[in-house]
Structures are given as C-alpha cells and as structure tokens.
C-alpha cells in the first residue's frame, strides 16, 4: 500500500520549474505573495491569471493536483466572494436576494478577491508540487542560517523537519498495523457515539505514541553511534546550487511585479 505514496505533495516530473533551486522558488513565492495584491482592475487581474496559468503549464504538473490543493480553500474563496458581492455597493443593482441588493461592482470586486486568493494558493502549491521535501528543507535551512546568531537553531530545525518527513511512511504503516491489531482484539472504531468513539481511539493513539517514543529513543542512540553531535563542524552532502536560471526566474517575477505596479499606479 505504501509503494505509491508520495511524501508531501511533490510530483516528480521534469520541468524547468522543478530544476530551479529551492531557495529561488521560496523567494519567488514570497515575492508573488506581494505582487498578487497589486492586481486591482480587469486588466491587471487578466495579466495575473495569464501569468499564473503560464507557470502552471510550465511546471508540467497535472492539473488535478492543483485542483486537489484548491478544494479546501474553495470554501474560503466562495465565502469571501459572497461577502463582497453582498456588501459592495457600487455600479448598478443587478438583483436582490433576501433584502440585499447585489451590485455589479460587488460581483466584480468579489471575483478579483477570488482570483487573488486562488493565485496565491496556486503559487504556494507550485512550490510544494515541484520541490521535493528534502530540497525544501534545505532551502528553508539556507534562509534560516543567517538568524543563527540570534539563537535560531537552523540546523536542528532542518534536521527535525527532515527526520519527520522520513518517518511519515513509517508512522502510516504503524498506524495501519495498530488499527488492525486493535480491531482483532475487538475494538470497533466506526460504531457508537462520538464519546465512545473517542474512547476507542485511545486504544489506537496510546500504542502509536508509545511506539513513537521507543523509536525516537532508538533513533537517538543510532545517531549517537554514528557520531552525531549537532551542527558544529558538520559537512553537507546536499548542496544547493544557485544558477543563472534562478536569477532569471527572480528577475522575471520582479519584472512582472513592476509591470502590475505600473499598470496600477500610472
């Protein structure tokens, strides 16, 4: 069952975006988070939609992965759209629902907001869909490193993330095993009131925790035995390479931001 699972959301296909350095992709997402809010009229929103669509196409990640990522956010988007549609009093009255007059300006404003949130979510998914969790961790570590002098344990945070990611499938497998073992002993996780269900869940949660603590201890011993002594004097196998294309990507994002800015303010 675990043969096909992909940790995180990473979709391993070949694309120009996949080949970018994790650091440039993280930076690009941060920049885009600002740029997205520059879009405020039909023109700029259209450009934003086009740009984001191009990025999605460029990533070669099948569309369904983006749709899957959008689903949980969809409620939020729908909610903000409705709020805007109901409470913006601009343009002409289109129709009236439950005593609220819906103006054309409201619909448009709602759409703009929906586009912005949608674009943000897609941009963020692009990062996790095209970057493997380990590269992502390395990228974050690189950005955290300067804060080390202020006491931020960048190496430790990165190692913790990496080990957690590595243990997800192990935990899933174990959870499955415990579920089966407890079912075999007569535990029924699907019947009864919420309270009884929560009670039965303890039969699942507690063994899972006990096993995890045991594993953590074993792993600490194994790490000790292999000479782990914190980040000091440690070398790294994985190196991040900032290449020309990473600079190009960042420049493109900045140019895109400038374009939107000019169209908005000039």
């Amino acid at each position, binding site marked *: 069952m*675990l*043969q096909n*699972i992909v*940790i995180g959301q990473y979709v391993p296909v070949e694309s120009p975006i996949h080949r970018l350095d994790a650091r440039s992709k993280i930076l690009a997402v941060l920049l885009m988070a600002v740029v997205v809010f520059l879009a405020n009229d039909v023109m700029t929103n259209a450009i934003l939609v086009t740009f984001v669509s191009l990025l999605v196409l460029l990533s070669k990640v099948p569309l369904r992965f983006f749709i899957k990522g959008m689903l949980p956010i969809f409620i939020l988007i729908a909610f903000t759209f409705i709020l805007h549609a109901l409470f913006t009093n601009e343009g002409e009255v289109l129709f009236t629902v439950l005593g609220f007059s819906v103006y054309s300006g409201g619909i448009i404003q709602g759409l703009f907001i929906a586009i912005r949130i949608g674009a943000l979510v897609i941009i963020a998914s692009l990062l996790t869909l095209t970057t493997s*969790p*380990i590269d992502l961790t390395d990228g974050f570590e690189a950005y955290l490193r300067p804060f080390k002098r202020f006491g931020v344990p960048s190496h430790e945070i990165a190692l913790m993330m*990496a*080990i957690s*990611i*590595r243990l997800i*499938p*192990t935990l899933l*497998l174990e959870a499955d095993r415990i579920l089966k073992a407890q079912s075999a002993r007569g535990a029924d996780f699907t019947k009864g009131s919420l309270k009884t269900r929560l009670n039965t869940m303890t039969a699942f949660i507690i063994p899972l925790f006990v096993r995890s603590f045991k*594993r953590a201890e*074993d*792993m600490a*011993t*194994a*790490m*000790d*035995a*292999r*000479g*782990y*002594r914190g980040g000091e*004097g*440690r*070398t*790294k*196998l*994985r*190196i991040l390479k900032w290449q020309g294309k990473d600079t190009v990507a960042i420049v493109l994002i900045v140019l895109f931001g400038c374009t939107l800015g000019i169209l908005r303010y000039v």
Partner: protein
Amino acid sequence: MSTIECKNVFFKYTDEQDWIIQDLSITIKQGEWVSILGTNGSGKSTLARLINALLTPTSGAVTVAGKSTDDEGEIWNIRQKAGMVFQNPDHQFVAATVRDDIAFGLENAGVARDEMLKRIASASERVGVDDLLFAEPHRLSGGQKQRAAIAGVLALQPDIMIFDEATAMLDPKGRKEVMATMKQLHERGITILMITHELEEALESDRVVFMEHGKIINDSKAEEFFQKPEFLVERDFHLPYFLQVQKHLVENGFQTNYLLDEDEWVKSLCTSNSRM
C-alpha cells in the same frame, strides 16, 4: 589496528540496580569474528554499547585501540572506529534516501564533500546497495535497509563493526544477505562483533563468547564451543538440525567430534565406513 580490551568491567544504570555487567574482562584482536551469545538480559547489548562508548563502565576500563572510552575527547574517534548496526532497520534509518543515510555519518565526521561522494560509492558497492542509492526507506526490504545501515557505518572506514542482533527482525533472505555481507567484511580484516540468538549465525564466526547474568561463562573458538552442544541444550537453545543429528551420532558412538560445516559433514557421512 584496533584491539578491544575490557578489564574488570562493571556496569549498571542506576545505583539500586543489580550489576548488568560484572567483572567482565575480554580482549578482542583486530580481524576476529566473535559472536556473543546469551539469553535475554545477559548483558550482551550492554557490552556492545560499552565498546563503542555509548555507555561508559561504572568501574573498570574499556579501551579501543588503546583509547579509553572514559576519555571525553576520544569518544568520537572510538565511535568512528567501532561502528554499530542495530536491530530494527527502521529505527536507524535517519535520512530520506539511502544515499543521504550513508552520508549521515560522514557529514557528522565533517568529511569533505568530494571524499564523501567517493566513500558513498565504494561503501554502497561493497554491500550491494549501489543501485538503490536514491530509494526511500519505505520502498526497501528489511535486508536492504540493514545493508544500507552497514554501508553507512562502512563509509566511516571502521576497524570494528558491532552487530546488535542485526538480523533478528529480518526474513531468511534478508538474513542471508546480511550474513554474506558480514563474511565479506571479515575477509577484509574488519573485526566483527556479532550479538545474536541464532546458533546458525554463530557457526560462521571464529570465536564464541557466551554470557549469562553479566558474566562471560564461556569464551572459546567456535569449533571447540560446538563440541559441547549439551551446554546449549541445557540453556534451552535450539540446535541447528544437522548438529542435532550429529549429537545423536556422537552419543551413540558413530562419530567422535562435531563438524561445523554442514556440507563437510555430509561428505564425511557419505565416505564413512561405519555401518549405522
């Protein structure tokens, strides 16, 4: 060259506890293949941990290549010299892929990246995981994971490798793979210290140390040790089938001593003149 020397070692975790290791002395020379047998709670694993400085003796001294495990400054050197492979393949796989996991120890030791790549290549080739370097742990079998763990230790170029029941959680195929790897390491002159419950595995080694209640009650060459299978039978060990048969033959006077190699024994049976 790294000789392991334990002199009058006593160990317990807390004051109230009974001794887990009591008055244990042993010398293991470079290149030996030693199995440590014993029942659960006999102190086998504790002994292993004392040797690579994961634990330090309550009294007495453990030295590896002349360096005491008590010496704070030498701990990392000792751990590099005496690598350890543990029982649970899943609990010692730290990184996300085989390659990263082999690199983990090297990164800790501060090995330069170029050298690291070379060592990963040679270590993974030696244990036969070179085609699995980019595989994630959940896609590997237990035997493959253990071999990856061995490669991780091997990359640190140890003189000694300690296997703490490293085959206990593996299926027969995984066991075979790991045993074959051990044999190959032994041939290359690495000291093998193997903690096990399996007599079949102990048969492969040169020397058998049997522990009970934290003491060594037998320390002899494997050939000598297996001449007295009663010793094991008394302690509820299950003899390998071909040794059981030999036991009957010896007891009934058809054979004078035990042969540890099954094929050799079969051959000698076929060529023997005695009429059973």
